[in-house]
């Protein structure tokens, strides 16, 4: 009589162990998947800073400015944007904070009449991303 329950117990234990192993593997896979997803998201520019950098590559910023992290940006019309996150003023006039920078990127002549920097009809979301990137240059 006794061997049966023992065998049953052993079978149960082995099934539990299999289940535990499966669960462990599954959660590892899940974590792995999440890691991959995050990397893809980053590669697609899904953090604001990285999206901003990619947007700067798409817009003609580099025609006039040197911008660290954007190799093609080597323009000499406007000032270099190196360490722009630490710059005190935008266009030498406006105290450099995020809101002002976003507004500036969307319509420079509205903020500093006479500036050579043009209005590039930039959506607010793009300006926000670019501002994130520029603010990260410290």
């Amino acid at each position: 009589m006794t061997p049966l329950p023992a065998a049953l117990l052993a079978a149960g234990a082995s099934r539990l162990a299999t289940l535990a192993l499966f669960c462990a593997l599954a959660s590892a896979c899940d974590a792995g998947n999440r890691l991959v997803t995050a990397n893809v998201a980053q590669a697609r520019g899904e953090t604001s800073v990285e999206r901003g950098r990619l947007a700067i590559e798409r817009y003609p910023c580099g025609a006039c400015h040197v911008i660290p992290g954007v190799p093609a940006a080597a323009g000499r019309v406007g000032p270099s944007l190196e360490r722009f996150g630490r710059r005190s003023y935008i266009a030498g006039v406006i105290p450099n904070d995020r809101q002002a920078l976003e507004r500036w990127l969307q319509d420079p002549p509205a903020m500093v009449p006479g500036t050579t920097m043009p209005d590039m009809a930039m959506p607010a979301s793009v300006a926000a991303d670019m501002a994130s990137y520029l603010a990260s240059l410290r």
Partner: protein
Amino acid sequence: MRTVVATLAGAAMLAALAAAAVVYAGVYDVSASTPHTQFVYSLLETAQRQSVRMRARSIEPPQVAVSPLRGAACFKARCEQCHGGPGVAPEGIGLGMQPVPGPLIDASGTWRLREVYWVTRNGVKMTGMPAWRLRMSDADIWSVAEFVMGLSRMSAADYAARMQAAAGERCSTEATASASAQRAGDPRRGRAVIAQYACRACHLIPGVTGADVHVGPPLGGLARRTTIAGKLPNTIDRLEDWIRFPHRVDPASAMPDVGVSENDARDIAAYLMTLH
């Protein structure tokens, strides 16, 4: 012999490490609320005296007309606020400074005329003593140096009388231009002059040392820029105008008019145009 060298090298290394530890741990009190330690004070004072003596050695006495009235007027306008005078206390700016600016009443006991001229003209690093070379004519610097040398013989009443007599005089605000207005800019002089107009307080400028500041844009590569001040074509004439009168170009600009003379602006622009 080898042991001696090794011991000396070891001791030197320990001393350097100790010095670095003192600096990085923030041990030294840099506040102007307490005086230097006597050791540091004496070290700085000796370094200053020897340096001034060395550098003023070959200065010839004035070739310019020295005016006692101008000397008094310049002392009142430029020196009294920090140094005070017989019967007159320094203002807050001088009283709150460490080391305390000397009273100059006994200056003739320590310094020669040419040394007072040198100090007035060139200033002394880290003491609060500014260089007046670009903001006073040479004649006025000699005049004020003569005035300082005479302070030890003045009573408080004499001093007050001298000041009253000089009340109508104005001290110069610019160095006398040494060359014709048509000369070409001198980049080497420009680089030296940049340090006297606080340009480097807001801008990184290759070739001029200073803090890691980003108040204004860095000026490296300025010669290759096509536009300056956000709107002007980058020519040497426009650059000079911008340096001298930023608010004529852009009334809203945060860049101040620091009173750059035409002569100095030409040299500064010449230097900036060497930055490729």
